[in-house]
């Protein structure tokens, strides 16, 4: 070879940098630039059409902090994070643990539990609007049939009920992902560990919590991380089902931003909401990202 590669920067290093060029360029253009541009826009008042934007300083942020609609959306987002971390993950783990015990028809169950996860959010919205239809929907009909008609609600029309109704639909939609990741993880647990525990006289309950669950950590961390990310980004299902209504009761920060930007053309205020959303997401998700990028070093050290 004509050129002797220098010790610090070899041909391999240059190839690596070449591979990274396109992804980092896309990242710079579609993540870094728009985020900086949005932070700047959030300090202005602008309708999206006027040739100039009016600088208003932190006024958008200050007025939002006293806006009940905004505060309601923040509260809903926090509740969604808690819900997404607990319910679909817990249910997915339960189903995976049951199915892992070797049950006839395992393949069929695996498909059934995962199927809802494959469908689009708008389809989830359409199907559940029909499930929740207050007069003829499946839920009301079944409750009437078993004599519990008194429990029927105006599921999506009552501000006190709508968020729980949406959570039911989302649990149906996303549990499949948690289920499959846990199921795959359980299949990775070495049989010898479980056998050893059984021989020592552990009950199935003990085997699961003392042996399988700790070894499931890689699956758990994926499920919880993805759930938190999805909960902060939650938009499609809520928008397609209720548009944040009735009376803003099911608003989350993402639907609020969309409505302010493209419904009311308050671009500055809308981006201020989005900046708040990113700040909250950073607090919740940053530890996860730091953990994930640290884990890399661990795995290479092995």
């Amino acid at each position, binding site marked *: 070879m004509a050129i002797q590669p220098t010790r610090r920067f070899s041909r391999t290093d240059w190839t690596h940098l070449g591979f990274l060029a396109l*992804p980092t360029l896309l990242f710079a253009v579609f993540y870094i630039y728009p*985020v900086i541009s949005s932070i700047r826009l959030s300090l202005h008042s602008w309708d999206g059409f006027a040739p100039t934007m009016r600088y208003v300083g932190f006024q958008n942020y200050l007025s939002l902090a006293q806006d009940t609609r905004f505060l309601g959306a923040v509260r809903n987002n926090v509740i969604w994070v808690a819900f997404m971390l607990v319910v679909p993950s817990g249910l997915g783990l339960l189903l995976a643990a049951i199915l892992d015990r070797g049950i006839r028809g395992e393949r069929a169950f695996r498909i059934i539990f995962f199927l809802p996860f494959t469908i*689009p959010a708008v389809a989830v919205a359409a*199907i559940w609007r029909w499930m929740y239809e207050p007069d*003829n929907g499946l839920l009301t009909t079944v409750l009437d049939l078993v004599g519990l008609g008194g429990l029927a609600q105006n599921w999506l029309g009552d501000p006190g009920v709508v968020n729980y109704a949406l959570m039911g639909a989302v649990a149906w939609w996303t549990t499949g992902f948690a289920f499959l990741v846990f199921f795959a993880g359980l299949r990775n647990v070495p049989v010898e560990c479980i056998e050893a525990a059984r021989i020592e006289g552990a009950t199935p309950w003990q085997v699961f919590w003392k042996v399988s669950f700790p070894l499931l950590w*890689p699956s758990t961390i994926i499920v919880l991380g993805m759930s938190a990310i999805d909960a902060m980004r939650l938009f499609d299902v809520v*928008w397609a089902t209720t548009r944040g209504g009735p009376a803003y009761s099911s608003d989350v920060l993402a639907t609020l931003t969309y409505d302010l930007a493209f419904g009311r053309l308050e671009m500055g205020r809308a981006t201020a909401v989005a900046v708040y959303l990113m700040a909250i997401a950073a607090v919740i998700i940053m530890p996860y990202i730091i953990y994930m990028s640290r884990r890399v070093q661990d795995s290479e050290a092995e």
Partner: protein
Amino acid sequence: MSTTLRQRQTVLTRTVLYGMAILFLAPLVVAVITSIKSPVEITRVLALPTEFYWQNYAAAISRMGRSFLNSIAITVPAVAFSILVGALAGYPLAYMRGSSGKVVYFLLLTGMLVPFQIVQIPLFFLVQRMGLHDTIPGMWMVHTAYAVPFCTFFMRNFFASVPRSMYEAALIDGCGPFLYFWKLLLPASASGLAALAIIQSRAIWNDLLFAITLTASDKARPVTVQIAGFASSLQVEYGPLMAATVISVVPVMAAYLLFQKSFVRGLLGGAGK
């Protein structure tokens, strides 16, 4: 443990399992049944249809226009591009030593916490200035770009599970790092690529946010935007809506059923690491 207790446990787990299976299937079954019912029968939700009312599907197809084809034209190339870019980034990040690789990896991962709402407005103007607003290539570009963090994460972990000795042996044999990637690493990662393809098909086919922001007409509008449009009208006709929903659900569901073996295997290699 006594046999009766074990039997009782089995009965309990069976009951939970079948109960959950019914809960998971019921909405899908009701949607399919509703889609073939006539307007008169539709309100009796538990009754089976007496005839196959195909007019719902005719109405759905005419309302969906070419949005279904748009969805296919957007999804297939965008999935391929996003996986390719994820593999491009994942490869050096899995093999680079030293801190610079870790810094880049961390930076790309932070993209996962960025809510898409914060990029939405500048993105709209950016895509417009590029002349790609309301075009299918514009959607390819956007879906590829916003997939960078997750696809990098996934492919990097998958590549890291491929034995490093293979890489070192290839370099010693005079195979350059580029040829190694193309001739050895990608073929060895088929199951990971398939799993990511399924995840990406779902994410891109199902997307609503980017599509409502960046498409404006039949030229590029995908099926999700079209359905959201007629699902949220005040007087919803559930027959045609359910027919359209069923049509929109089929491609990703079929893809998953076809590739589920490699999906589970790939998930283990990538996410399980």
